[in-house]
C-alpha cells in the first residue's frame, strides 16, 4: 500500500531502514553461528575488545561432532515428532473450540471463555508440579504422552482461531447451511480452508512452544530416549560451565530449522487471500 510512492528517496529510505533492522535482527544469531565453528578460547579472545573477526565464521566442525555424539540427533528427532504431533492435534482441537466461541452463543459461553483466558494467564512453570504429580498418577510419567497431551489445548491458539473465524462473513455459512451442510461441514469445508494463514500461524506457535520447552520435558520425561532439544542443550556443559561452542552449534541448528520451515510455508502463509477472492 505504500507502493504508489515511487520517488527514489522513499525506496532508499526503505532499504536503509530494512537493512538496519536486519542487522539488529540477525547479528546475535550470526555471532552464535560464527562462534559455533570456533574453539572456546578464540571466541572469548575475539570479543574483548570487540574484533571484526568475531563475526567471521571459524572453520572447526568439532563442536558439531561433539553435539551429535552427545545425543543431539536423537533429541532433534524426538522434538520434531513431539512438535509435529502437537501441531496437528493442537490445530484440530483448538480450531474447533475457536469455531464454537466465534459462531455460537450458548449457555456458559462467557464463563468457558473466561476459563480459556485464565488458562493462558497462568505461567506454565507454576502448574508444573501438580501436573507432574498427575502424570505419575495416571502412568504417563516419562512417556511421550506426558510431553504431548497436556500441551495440546492452548488458550492462545483458541483465541487466535476465534478472532479469525469471527471475521468470516456469516452469509457464507448461512448459505452453506441452507444447502444442507452440517455444522461440522461448515467448520471443516468452509472455515478451515479459509483460514490457512491463521492455521499456519497457530501451527508455528504450537511448534515453537515445543521447540522451546525446557522445564516440563526436564521433569516429566527424564529418560535419555525422550530428551528434547532444550534439555539436551543444557547438557552441553561441564560441571562448572557451559561448553560455549557446542551450545552455539546446537542453537544454530535449532534456530535454522524453524527458519527453513517459515521460508517454505511463507507463500501459503501470506498469500491465502487469493483463495478467499476466488470463492
Amino acid at each position: 500500500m505504500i507502493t504508489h510512492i515511487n520517488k527514489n528517496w522513499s525506496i532508499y529510505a526503505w532499504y536503509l531502514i530494512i537493512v538496519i533492522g536486519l542487522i539488529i535482527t540477525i547479528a546475535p544469531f550470526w555471532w552464535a553461528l560464527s562462534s559455533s565453528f570456533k574453539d572456546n578460547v578464540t571466541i572469548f579472545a575475539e570479543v574483548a575488545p570487540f574484533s571484526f573477526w568475531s563475526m567471521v565464521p571459524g572453520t572447526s566442525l568439532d563442536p558439531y561432532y561433539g553435539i551429535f555424539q552427545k545425543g543431539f540427533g536423537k533429541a532433534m528427532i524426538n522434538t520434531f515428532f513431539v512438535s509435529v504431533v502437537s501441531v496437528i492435534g493442537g490445530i484440530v482441537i483448538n480450531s474447533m473450540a475457536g469455531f464454537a466461541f466465534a459462531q455460537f452463543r450458548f449457555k456458559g459461553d462467557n464463563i468457558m471463555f473466561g476459563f480459556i483466558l485464565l488458562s493462558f494467564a497462568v505461567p506454565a512453570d507454576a502448574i508444573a508440579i501438580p501436573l507432574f504429580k498427575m502424570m505419575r498418577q495416571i502412568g504417563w510419567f516419562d512417556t511421550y504422552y506426558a510431553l504431548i497431551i497436556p500441551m495440546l489445548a492452548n488458550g492462545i491458539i483458541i483465541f487466535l482461531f476465534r478472532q479469525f473465524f469471527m471475521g468470516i462473513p456469516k452469509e457464507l455459512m448461512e448459505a452453506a447451511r441452507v444447502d444442507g451442510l452440517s455444522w461440522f461441514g461448515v467448520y471443516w469445508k468452509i472455515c478451515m480452508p479459509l483460514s490457512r494463514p491463521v492455521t499456519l500461524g497457530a501451527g508455528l506457535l504450537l511448534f515453537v512452544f515445543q521447540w522451546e520447552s525446557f522445564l516440563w520435558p526436564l521433569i516429566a520425561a527424564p529418560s535419555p530416549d525422550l530428551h528434547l532439544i532444550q534439555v539436551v542443550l543444557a547438557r552441553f556443559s561441564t560441571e562448572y560451565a557451559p561448553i560455549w561452542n557446542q551450545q552455539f552449534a546446537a542453537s544454530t541448528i535449532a534456530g535454522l530449522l524453524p527458519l527453513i520451515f517459515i521460508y517454505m510455508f511463507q507463500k501459503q502463509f501470506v498469500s491465502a487471500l487469493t483463495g478467499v477472492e476466488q470463492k
Partner: protein
Amino acid sequence: MKNNFFKRQWIVPYLFLAPALLATIAFKLYPIFIGLWESLIYTSFGGGVEKRLFVWFENYQYLFDDPLFWQSLKITSILTVIINPFQISLSLGLALLLMRKSRFIRVIRSLYLLPIGVALPIATVVWGLMLDPYQGLANGFLGLFGIPPQPFLISEHQALWSIIAIATWKGVAFWMLFLLAGMEEIPTQYYEAAKIDGARTFEKFRFITLPLLKRTILFVFVADTATNFVLMVPMIILTKGGPMQSTNVLAFEAYRSGFYYQDWGRSLSIISILTIISLIVIGLQLLFLGENKEDKVK
C-alpha cells in the same frame, strides 16, 4: 450427521468445544486450582518435622507486608505499560514496511522472522554476552560511532530496558507475523478505491488497514500482554531480578520463591495475584478493543 441427537442445535457448540475444554480442565484448570489451594497453605519444618497448615490468606497478608513484593509489583507495572505498546507498534511498523513489494521480499521477510526459531533461553544467553559492559559486541558496535560503553544489564537504570530489548528482539518477529498475515488478507480493491478517492498513505492506514486489522490487533495485544506478564527467562538467566531488584518482576519473584526457595505458599500467592492482574488487563483490552457478539447463532 444421520443421528437425530446431533441435529439438535444446542449441543453443537459443546461438541466443538469438548476436546479442547476437557483438556484445558484436566491439564490447566485443575493444576491451577491445586495451585490456588496450595497458596493458602503454610509449610514449616520446625524441629525437622514438616508441618502443613491451612492458614487462609496469611501468605497473602505476609506478601502485602513485604516491601519486596511491592517493588516487584512496581517493576511488573512499569514493564507491562512499556513493553506491550512498544512491541506492538514496532511489529505493526515493521509489518507495514514489509508489505512493500520488492524482489527480495520473501528473503527479507524470512530473515526478519529468524528470531522465532531462536529459543528465548538461547537468545538470552547470546544477548547477555553481547551486552557485556566490557567485552560485549554491543559496546564494540557503539564504539564505532564514538558512543562511550554502556553498562546495560549491570546498571539499575538500564537493566530493565535491556531486558525489554531482548524480549522485543524475540517477540516482534512473532507478532509481526500475525499482523502481516492480517494485512495480506485485506482485499487490495479497498486500497485501489481509496487511491481513486485521493486518499493519502496515512489515511489509508487509518481508515482501511487499522479497522480491518482490528481483530488481529486485539489478538496480538492480548497474546503479547499475557506473554509478557510471565516473562522471566532473561531474569532467570541474566539478572536474577537485579541489580538492586530493578528487574524483579512478579513472575520471576514467584519462580524464585518456588523453584529456588521451595516456598510454594509464597510463590503461588504471587502467581494468584499476578493471574488476577493479568486477567483484569486482558479483560480491559477485550472490552475496549473488542467487537460485539451480536451476529452469533443463538
